[in-house]
């Protein structure tokens, strides 16, 4: 197992979203890959993400949104991290971000504009995020 322990991930499912299965698998996959995972679970508010990141001195916040309200739920998160002084914390988001099957390019742009560093389409496998984490944090 790689020495990824130094990287701390705050993981959670934002808003009123209760989709728990993907969260459990991401937790498992990130841990197996050697990361330090702080899982705040489903139905997590923006504040819970921020607080967990502050408390654990996190490197990256991985937000899941499956149920379609991601657009409403994620607005302002970036601004809140900045306010909280978490300017170096990276923001990833993935799942089924919007309501319905929409043009992916549009959705990606929307979330990038909201301040997310990486935005993932439905069905992204954990290994892809792990590879990106390794790249983003020069771990390889």
């Amino acid at each position, binding site marked *: 197992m790689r020495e990824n322990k130094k990287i701390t991930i705050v993981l959670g499912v934002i*808003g*009123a*979203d*209760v989709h*728990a*299965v993907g969260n*459990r*698998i991401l937790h*498992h996959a990130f841990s197996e890959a050697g990361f330090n995972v702080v899982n705040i*679970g*489903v*139905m997590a508010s923006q504040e819970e993400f921020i607080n967990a990141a502050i408390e654990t001195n996190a490197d990256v916040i991985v937000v899941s949104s499956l*149920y*379609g*309200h991601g*657009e*409403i739920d994620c607005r302002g998160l970036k601004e809140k991290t900045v306010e909280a002084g978490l300017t170096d914390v990276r923001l990833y988001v993935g799942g*089924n971000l*919007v*309501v*319905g*099957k*929409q043009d992916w390019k549009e959705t990606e742009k929307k979330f990038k504009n909201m301040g997310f560093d990486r935005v993932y389409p*439905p*069905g992204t496998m954990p290994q892809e995020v792990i590879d990106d984490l390794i790249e983003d944090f020069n771990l390889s």
Partner: protein
Amino acid sequence: MEVELAKGKIDWDYFNQLRSEVLQAWPTGQEVNLEEAAAYHKELSPQRRFPELLKAAEREGRTLAQPRAGVALLQEHIELLQYLEKEGEADCLPTTIDSYTRQNRYNEAQKGIDESRKEGRSMLNGFPAVNHGVAACREVIEAVDVPVQVRHGTPDARLLAEITLAGGFTSFEGGGISYNIPYAKAVPLERSLAHWQYVDRLVGYYQDQGITINRELFGPLTGTLVPPCISHSIGIIEALLAAQQGVKSITLGYGQCGSLLQDVAAVITLKELAAEYLKKFGYTDVELSTVFHQWMGGFPQDESRAFGVIGWGAASAALAKANKVIVKTSHEAMGVPTKEANAAGIKATKQVLNMLKDQSLPESEELRVEKDIICKEVRVILDRVIDFGEGNLALGTVRAFKAGVLDVPFAPSKFNYGKLLPARDNNGAVRLLDFGNLPFSREIIEFHQEKIAERGREEGRQPSFQMVIDDIYAIGKGMLVGRPR
């Protein structure tokens, strides 16, 4: 007011005390007038009534097809339902409620409505019925010629029930367990059970006025490798709790596992066991029906592959002779479907249902084994829950969950014991790898262990959490059993 778990039918005066508080949670609560609502229902044409449709389906031995559907705005929602009725040929319709309403966050739902108006597309994943109010609900009911049901996932659905039932809906999905454990994180069971006793009591009120409202229990739970014994036990408890409040039309739900034998055995035993326990509790005049959910876990992204899953779900439902099937769409893995995709799912389903209308899975040794094990498992769980309750089934349920005698795989609720690990056996049936605290006999445990061991031998690996993960992904990747690569 403190929640209290009723032992029997809630006293009407006490109910009214609770009621005045419920109706204050959002302005539209004031629109509800029970007598007027009962009068409205009496005028409703029978073809728009769910209990009648279910009885007809049972009589004719056919399986009804019902989609999921709901958008933020009233006019758009009506157009959606009309489309699914005309183009999709749906036998009955839903009104799927958005996730904010499900969490009683009516303010956020309002924001969703407003933004949807602005953006010109639905920003909500369902229809916020509470915000829209009674009159709007009646517009929905009257806009289509088939019955419409409220489908959601709401731990506290009291206001939603008040408004939609007064609004003319004739079926209401959910239950104190099935709409809490998979749908919430921190709602205590005693609270959701009490809130659903309220809903059932409300339905009981209508029943007392001679108006039967169908109550459907949400069988699939987390939709992810839930073994039949778990969903059956929970469904039967919810049926008993509903019957206690005077409910007379109950639809028992089950989410397809994917193994034909297990699924057929499950549908058959679900009705049999429910009737057995209802009788044990003295309820002999409850109309029972079954609903089969096409695969509720992760779907393939590819639309043609999704059609394959849908077709197999339809076939299994028909061969099991379920009274109704809830239809998925080819967009499932991507997002809430367009109306066209939704209609396509219904039509593919109906083609299969009609082709299989006159066929069923014949009795066989293998089917008998599956039915047997389900009955044994359910009886041992239910009898323990009943014992725990010392005469109060709702209380027994709370205690059973605490003890892990009831446990739902992958549920988000912190009031779930959370120790079960399901996995498929070598033929695709869902078994248990970890039993948590289920009160299973040695015989049952060995049955599961041997089944999973057989798969392990076939795959040359020890059963483990990796096997579970492989099974969770399997259908999405085009298999049933998550074989190692």
